[in-house]
């Protein structure tokens, strides 16, 4: 027993070190006083100050948050609709094809998604003049495209676990299908919708590849700015920025997991 738990502990420690050592190093070096990234010069918050005085980074961050917020919100609406349809379609060939299509963006390499979207936007622009050039709106459309697939999958799995007699009971008590959705179905799948939103938000915030394809001049998102800065040599303020991003993403992921747990608890209560 003792030996086994020692083995498990070692394995777990090794795994976590492998996963998190780079991030820990980054977080620690973000508090480095020295201008040289690789040399430790004592603790300081200097680079955080520098970071907040850097307009380019602040603008990019604000843009990224704006894009993430809008994309997540739109993706949640569309993805919930798609997930609802999928779970209510019944067993048919149409459903199989549809659910295949929905999950395709999840497995598609980002480069291909980005490239195909870029080609589409260019073709659309030359066909009927919209979207005129590429910028924030094209990034949002691109992010919605892949985020809604995640939302659809999450919502669908929640709906398939839901007792359908609840909807029948609501109808029986006089609720029309339109009000039924908002009174019964939506509250019950709310945890899934929220975790879908959080996931979409983080995915959009993280995305570099697709955004690089579909963004235009003057519309660099935060990952794009970081990437371009790093290519010119890593500056310590990038470490500070990355640390902040890790914090935001971590909060998002933890919140999403917490929502998922609430959802399973709610389901268990339903039994």
């Amino acid at each position, binding site marked *: 027993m003792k030996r086994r738990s020692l083995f498990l502990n070692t394995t777990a420690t090794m795994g976590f070190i492998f996963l998190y050592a780079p991030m820990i190093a980054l977080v620690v070096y973000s508090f480095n006083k020295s201008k040289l990234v690789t040399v430790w010069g004592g603790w300081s918050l200097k680079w955080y100050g520098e970071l907040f005085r850097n307009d380019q980074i602040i603008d990019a961050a604000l843009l990224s948050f704006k894009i993430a917020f809008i994309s997540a919100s739109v993706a949640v609406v569309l993805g919930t609709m798609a997930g609802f349809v999928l779970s209510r379609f019944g067993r048919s060939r149409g459903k199989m094809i549809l659910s295949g299509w929905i999950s395709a963006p999840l497995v598609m390499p980002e480069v291909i998604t980005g490239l195909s979207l870029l080609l589409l936007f260019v073709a659309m622009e030359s066909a009927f003049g919209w979207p005129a050039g590429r910028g924030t709106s094209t990034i949002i459309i691109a992010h919605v495209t892949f985020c809604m697939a995640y939302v659809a999958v999450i919502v669908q799995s929640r709906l398939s676990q839901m007792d359908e*007699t*609840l909807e*029948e009971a*609501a*109808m*029986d*008590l006089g*609720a029309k299908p339109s*009000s039924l959705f908002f009174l019964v179905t939506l509250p019950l799948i709310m945890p899934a919708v929220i975790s879908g939103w959080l996931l979409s938000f983080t995915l959009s915030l993280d995305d570099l590849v697709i955004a690089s394809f579909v963004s235009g001049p003057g519309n660099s998102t935060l990952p794009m700015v970081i990437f371009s800065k790093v290519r010119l040599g890593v500056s310590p303020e990038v470490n500070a920025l990355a640390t902040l991003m890790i914090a935001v993403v971590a909060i998002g992921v933890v919140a999403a997991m917490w929502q998922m747990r609430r959802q399973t608890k709610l389901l268990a209560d339903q039994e």
Partner: protein
Amino acid sequence: MIETAGDAGLIASPDITELPLWKQEGATPFLRIENITKKFGDFTAVDNISLDIYKNELFCLLGGSGSGKSTLLRMLAGFESPTSGRIIIDGVDMSGVQPWKRPVNMMFQSYALFPHLSVEDNVGFGLKREGLGRAEVKQRVAEMLDMVQLGHLGKRKPSQLSGGQRQRVALARSLVKRPKLLLLDEPLGALDKKLREETQFELINIQEELGVTFVVVTHDQEEAMTLATRIGVMNNGIIVQTAEPHDVYEYPNSRFVAEFVGSVNLFEGRIIEDQPDSVRINSQEAGAVLYVSHGISCAPNQKVHVAVRPEKMRISREQPDQQENCVCGVVEEYAYMGGLTVYRVRLASGKEVRVTQPNTSREASERLTWKEQVYLYWDLDSSVVLTA
């Protein structure tokens, strides 16, 4: 509580001299089911059923799984639309009427309480959909919760209630809109035995108090017997027999009903004497000529079954005086159950007969035991001839 319920619910009060509606000539049915058929692909779940149910009835659809009883109920609620036929509730044809517009409410087998709403909001859900004012909703919800004795639990969520409490919330929720017709799908299925008995009588009380017409679906014959004014026994999508509980038990119209409701001994035989008011049947299985004190319409020499309920038979070591309806066998097994003893007796033909006897004596020595030779006999009017 149970005693008073029993007095009020189970035994007709003496001042009611009128015949029940279903026995009155020309009474208007409250719910009329006309030639309803429901097919799922090739499978016919409900096969051309016609049925009249009258106001204030508590009608039980009794049948095994797959008999079509739940499908019929779901068509009444509007969740399934019939392949052909009509449903008329209180004179209004329900074809094409959506579930949310029907004067019908349903209590689901799983109760289907909304987990995200409190008990009060669950019960008030239907009233709010009607657009009633806040104050009226509150008052009617409170009345209803008091009736099911849950007034103090209004703020709880369904997950914080016991099974019996949830069942009562579901009942309150389905009654609060004062439906003309209440559908109950296995209402007592999920409760333990003690709660079931209590709730059965409570249901009857509520039904009489509110004057709602109930249609109950159940697979439990005991539940049907205690609850129903009439029972419709279903099998393979058709109603085999519609009758009052007493008649379903004592005068089953077919072997299916006799065997499905309660237990029964069936003796196969052929008619040898056919009088207008009695028949004699020669049964190889029984090893005797059986006499039945009612006439039947059938072909001479037709194969029939004589049905005798286990509790209608008597068992003794000595040969009784009566010559007819007396068979001889050996006690194969017996089970002492306190109030009753159940015997399994093997006849000379190899047929196994089940007999239940009340234990009127405390003396163990008087009890029959294994391998004893016994006589089984029953009154001339205790048996029924079944031709179907």
